[in-house]
């Protein structure tokens, strides 16, 4: 298998799953001929036709709203929102309907859909194109919220999301879309949703991150390990909701220290829940306060200042070193 970028991996997952399962379709703005503004859906319309790779009119709420109807009536739509900054327009339908149909009808009508969207900064984009608002979705009972970090996990998690019988919000860190390639198994195997992934085992400190921040954090860890000779456990959260409390607690019980790196704003970002889960399940093992390196509680700045809002190598390094030294 050649090495693939995350864009290629996601595209491949869509190709394979649409081939395998007739009820899967993709839809969204410019996803057909144009292959999506980031080319995630390239080639799908050519292969599966306009009816299964639908260029929709420009209306986010109706994209998910009609996808809900399709899902109720036997399809498995994978809808793309062009940038997560426009996905807040879908929250009425997502919270009010996608998340509720199963429960509302005691399982008679269900909504197996995937809402895909690129998110996050670092690509010199315009206003509204660089947000990290996974909290909106993770705080929505009845919806699963997934963020992959590598081509391989993006592939497997997307397969898992499409095959999941319930609505899944699938947020793609666009900074990692083409940042690197990876050796790759395209074996059609899905990854279970709801599980964090231990990227590297360690005993002195637990570092938790997800999406594009994971890679920045990995770099810091290499340096920290080199410099201080410590043993770091790195966890890729992957599933923002449901959150894998067990893996987090097991790790912190072992290391006694934790740092969380998130791109989202501080107040009520996923780190808040991680800290709370540590409080619930491993507080007495903590040897230092958990540190969170996050965006500030400000609106995402335009790109000239954006890098100061996104956790930097320096901030992550300081947080890890301070926590180790506490």
């Amino acid at each position, binding site marked *: 298998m050649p090495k693939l970028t995350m864009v290629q991996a996601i595209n491949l997952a869509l190709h394979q799953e649409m081939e395998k399962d007739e009820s899967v379709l993709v839809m969204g703005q410019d996803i057909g001929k144009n292959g999506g503004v980031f080319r995630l859906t390239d080639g799908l319309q050519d292969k599966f036709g306009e009816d299964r790779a639908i260029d929709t009119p420009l*209306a986010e709420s109706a994209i*998910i709203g*009609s996808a809900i109807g399709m899902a109720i009536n036997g399809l498995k739509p994978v809808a793309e929102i062009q940038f997560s900054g426009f996905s807040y327009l879908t929250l009425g*339908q997502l919270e009010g309907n996608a998340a509720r149909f199963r429960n509302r009808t005691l399982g008679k009508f269900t909504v197996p859909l995937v809402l895909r969207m690129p998110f996050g900064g670092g690509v010199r984009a315009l206003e509204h194109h660089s947000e990290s608002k996974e909290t909106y979705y993770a705080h929505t009972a*009845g919806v699963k919220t997934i963020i992959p970090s590598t081509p391989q996990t993006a592939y497997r998690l997307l397969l898992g999301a499409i095959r999941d*019988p319930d609505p899944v919000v699938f947020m793609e860190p666009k900074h990692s879309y083409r940042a690197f390639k990876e050796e790759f198994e395209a074996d059609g195997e899905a990854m279970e949703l709801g599980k964090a992934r231990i990227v590297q085992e360690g005993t002195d400190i637990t570092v938790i991150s997800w999406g594009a921040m994971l890679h920045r954090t990995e770099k810091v860890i290499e340096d920290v390990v080199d410099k201080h000779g410590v043993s770091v456990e790195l966890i890729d959260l992957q599933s923002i909701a449901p959150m894998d409390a067990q893996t987090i607690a097991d790790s912190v019980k072992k290391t006694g220290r934790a740092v969380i790196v998130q791109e989202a704003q501080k107040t009520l970002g996923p780190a808040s829940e991680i800290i709370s889960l540590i409080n619930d399940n491993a507080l007495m093992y903590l040897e230092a306060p958990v540190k969170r390196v996050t965006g500030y509680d400000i609106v995402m700045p335009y790109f000239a200042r954006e890098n100061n809002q996104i956790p930097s190598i320096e901030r992550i390094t300081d947080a890890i070193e301070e926590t180790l030294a506490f």
Partner: protein
Amino acid sequence: MPSKVIARFDVSYLQILDENGKVDKGLEPKLPREKLLEMYRVMMRARRLDERLLKMQRQGRVGTLPVSVGQEASSGAAAMAMAEEDWFVGSYREVAGRIAMGEEMHKPMLIYGGFEEGNYNEDIPRLLPLAVILGSQIPHAVGIAYASKLRGEKSAVLAFNGDGAASEGDWHEALNFASVWKSPSVFVVQNNHWAISTPLSKQMNSETIAQRGIAYGMPCLQVDGNDALAVYKATKEALDRARKGEGPTLIEALTYRMLMHTTADDPKKYRSDEEAEEWKKRDPITRFKIYLQGKKLWNDKKEAELEEEIKQEIDAAVKYYENFKEFKLDQPFDHQFGTEVASLVEQRAEYNKYAR
């Protein structure tokens, strides 16, 4: 500003049975006697069910609820125009339409009693539950229709909303999608002149709601929504066209909300009794009864029999509802997800520890 006209549009109005029950023979649909009797029966069952629900609410046996009194034709006759394979996507003021679909009478009692168990009918596969978020059901209708069409099924979707809901963004987005997709769907707007306390004049500034169809290049018309024959005929033709692949239709059914918005509402705060009195004369049921009587299909004896039958049906439903005590407390956890989620297993245990 002088310039050239590049497009012309018009909006039609259909009435077959006038306010006095007089029928326009030229327009009268040729319906079998059983269908006509069933139409009357559906409307009567809906009316009496609403009345009983109101009473139950006043007695504190169910919670806040809306009733559909006065709107029995605009949803009931429309639903009777459906084919077996069609879908029904309603809002919450289609009691008659749901009854026409076969919904059992204890279902709304359960809903307004606070039980999700009222939201599905095991044997009615294409009847969606109530939609409370105004207008949000309309995109669902379009998606359902899309899926049927994609599979090549001959199935259409009949969707409902009120005059107020037509102001929501979702409504616009969905009608546009339906038009672009040539979706096999029919949109009935029950224009009952009020959205809670908001009159049409504050809701919109156009002669009709029907003309919104023009915006989407969608066939549209206005019907007398208290005239079961007109509603039936317009809906039937639209559904047939939808199933033939000719695309969606917008139907505005002019009707009136004869009672309060919900039991928590007091219309005296915002509208005159006279207006409501005026509309009583246009009652869809009275009108239809006169029509049946004119056709010698109905008489007092049949009326009495029907009343008795309905009473028994409602009594049985009330009984079912009142006996619905052994409900499963942790049902919300059964149907939160279709897969097991570890945190919810834990949370269910805590829930069950305290639930009652």
